């Protein structure tokens, strides 16, 4: 049996005390353990940012790459060796700024990977600049007079791209998060979980308290997760009540299931031996 402890890394997480990321450091291993996935078959891929340090702290295969590029790396790992469980993890800057295009195209492509975004609505590691999810008016080092750029909505974004599993969670609700991450990992296809993960150091607006007062569970309101338009509507909800949970899910085929060559795992394929006949066409 796999336990959470099997995922315990030897390096202690050095996020600020109280940082939202700790919740995911609990939730991800817990979900993996519940699913009986072994550390050796898990790859955590990340970019750069406070959140992206995650793979350093989990005992699994870790790929801590460059800013914004976790998704192409994660997709290719999965396509090369489908027996691995591949989780991409990173920040809102990483995923919705530098990595915008990869997020969008991964969502439409539907590789069987899980993408968890620590959405603290700020750049943490670079010491507090506005991110694409920073709220209007927010004061940061790059927006000393208040942010004037309307934030993007990662869920609507994913929905519009045709994502097959779209969810949101909150670091203040680990139990709920574990459940959703478990389902995201089990989902066959691209699963995005945007997590409100407060940055206690640089974001004084979107605090644990801010969310605690507002979040509610989608499943408590009979939301139909197969209805894309309903999902769009729920995704647009922002104010006194903010929904978390699974917004949308469908069973569209994964990218790899549509590709002929990938029907045999690449890593298991024998090398193709060339023959004289392969030159025929050049005659």
């Amino acid at each position, binding site marked *: 049996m796999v336990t959470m402890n099997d995922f315990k890394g030897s390096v202690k997480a050095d996020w600020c005390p109280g940082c939202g990321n700790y919740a995911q450091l609990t939730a991800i291993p817990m979900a993996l353990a519940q699913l009986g996935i072994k550390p*050796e078959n898990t790859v955590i891929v990340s970019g750069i940012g406070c959140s992206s340090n995650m793979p350093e702290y989990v005992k699994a295969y870790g790929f*801590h790459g460059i800013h914004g590029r976790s998704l*192409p790396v994660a997709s*290719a790992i999965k396509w090369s060796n489908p027996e691995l469980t591949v989780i991409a993890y990173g920040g809102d800057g990483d995923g919705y700024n530098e990595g915008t*295009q990869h997020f969008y*195209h991964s969502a439409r492509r539907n590789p069987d990977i899980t993408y968890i975004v620590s959405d603290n609505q700020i750049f943490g590691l670079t010491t507090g600049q506005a991110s694409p999810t920073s709220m209007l008016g927010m004061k940061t080092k790059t927006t000393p007079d208040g942010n004037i750029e309307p934030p993007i909505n990662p869920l609507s974004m994913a929905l519009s791209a045709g994502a097959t599993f779209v969810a949101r969670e909150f670091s203040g609700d680990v139990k709920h998060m574990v459940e959703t991450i478990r389902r995201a990992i089990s989902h066959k296809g691209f699963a995005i979980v945007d997590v409100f993960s407060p940055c206690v150091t640089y974001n004084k607006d979107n605090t644990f308290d801010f969310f605690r007062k507002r979040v509610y569970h989608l499943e408590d309101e009979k939301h139909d997760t197969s209805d894309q338009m309903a999902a769009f509507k729920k995704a647009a909800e922002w104010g006194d009540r903010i929904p978390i949970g699974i917004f949308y899910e469908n069973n569209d085929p994964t990218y790899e299931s549509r590709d002929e060559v990938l029907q045999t795992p690449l890593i298991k394929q024998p090398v193709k031996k060339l023959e004289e006949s392969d030159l025929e066409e050049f005659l």
Partner: protein
Amino acid sequence: MDQNEVIIRVGGAAGDGVQSAGLIIGKVFSRNGLHVQTYNYYQSIIRGGQSWYQIRASHNRVKSQGDGLDILIALNKDAIERHTNPKINEGGASPLDGIAVYDTALGDFTKYEKIKYCGLPLGEIAQKYSRNTLLKNTVAIGAVFGYLSLDFETLAGVIRDQFGGKGEIAELNVKAAKEGYDTFVTKYGKSSKALNPEEKRFYLISGGETAGMGAVRAGLKAYFGYPMTPASSIIHYLAAHSRKFDVFVKITEDEISAINMAIGANYAGIRAMTGSSGGGFALMTEAVGMAAEMEIPLVVYEAQRAGPSTGLPTKTEQGDLLQIIGASQGDFPKAVFSPRNVEEVYYMAGEALNLAEKYQMPVFLMVDLYLAEHYETVEKFDFTPDIVRPPFAKGDEKDYRRYAYTETGVSMRALPGTPNLMHNEDSDEHDEKGDVVSDAVTDPEIRRKIMEKRMKKLETYIKELPPTPSYLMEDAEYAVVQWGSTQGAVEEAVDILRSKGLKVGVIEVNRPFPVNQDIRDLVRGKKKVIFVENNYTGQLRRLISSEIGVTGDIITKYDGESFYPGALATQIEEKIRK
């Protein structure tokens, strides 16, 4: 004029079928066992403009598109005006000095001396068979082979292959060609050229294709890319053969995604490549450093075209060497290959994949538009699989360290999925175990050591570098230094100079980085060293001077065209006599 050799040019507009006509002609020769080189002059336009395709065929080995022009097939008026005008030289290409085949319906155009104008009612003939306007090209091709009195059956065979077997369209084309063949002979007679079928047959193939094949032979399992001329030919080849070769081909949202995917796939343990031309490669440079820092094998196919920026998208240049040397911040080990011809691309593609995996570092396979897209005859290839994979850790290693300090600088990889060896690979600086040293405490000492460990790989590799190839250097008094695709033109220029009694040899740099110290020995005592480069600033010369202090005179060409042997010989001679 060499009677064993012929140079044919098909000129027309984009969309006129210039290229396919050229390829048919080339294949007729190669199937008959003649050596062929082609040259493709075209624009970044889908229809219209002005393009041409040149085929040089010979009983002897040919190494470049050559000088001179024996036969012109003019598909439009612009082509006949242009290629017969002795004043127009398209970047060095010779004007016609032989026969011009064209449709008499073209009407009037300027005529020049010494040219034999062989008009034929190409369109009229064609219309007897079909209303497809491209059929007249087939008639013209037929005419040319009639003139050369080369076996019609081979031509018929190539046409059939080109037009999909024995169907109606193919047969119409064969018939049209035959009528062109016969009509020409009847009207204008035969050439004095002595081109006859040989007992062997050659393959006619481009560098983009041999890059793909060579990589497959070396175990390529995935190619990630975003189309860009002239790096697309490898993609098209691999995509078309994806299922046959079991190679996964993925076109991505951009080049950044492509290279990151290639790195991810290599990390997972398969052999994967990416590639682009200069502009797309620029976008990839950040990830090159990541591969180097994380010590993940990576092969990048870089097909140069004339820059800067979008520049001349369908023209050749060797302008990306310094971009590759400078790709990504910081110092790290890497290797750059610049195969000299289509055949060498095949072998170096495999060598690159092996080297990248052996040293867990980025390896660049540089070609240029000329090499990626022009066709050359090749007799045979070695098909023995060429795969040297270093061992991976299995899971029972004690005290496994992903980046263990070793004699060679190379440490053993453990692939994801291996029991017990879970670890983190990081683009942040790390220690032997892979733990990051830039978070809590940066230990300058560890940083120093891990830098040295990585750079040691390069030192180890340098010791294994094969000698720099050369041509006629044994007794040379003058050394010409070339790299990549200019080999053929340079060697032919040197042949010309040798025939004049000048003892010139060629140092052929096919592995420009790390710079081989043996170049020092090769130039020692030479009266003159002359670099020949298809770029403005002499990037190879700058690199070699930078790394080993060797320099010399320079001949450059930066008009988008490749070198022509005759003109080059003159330039080299001038440098020598100066």
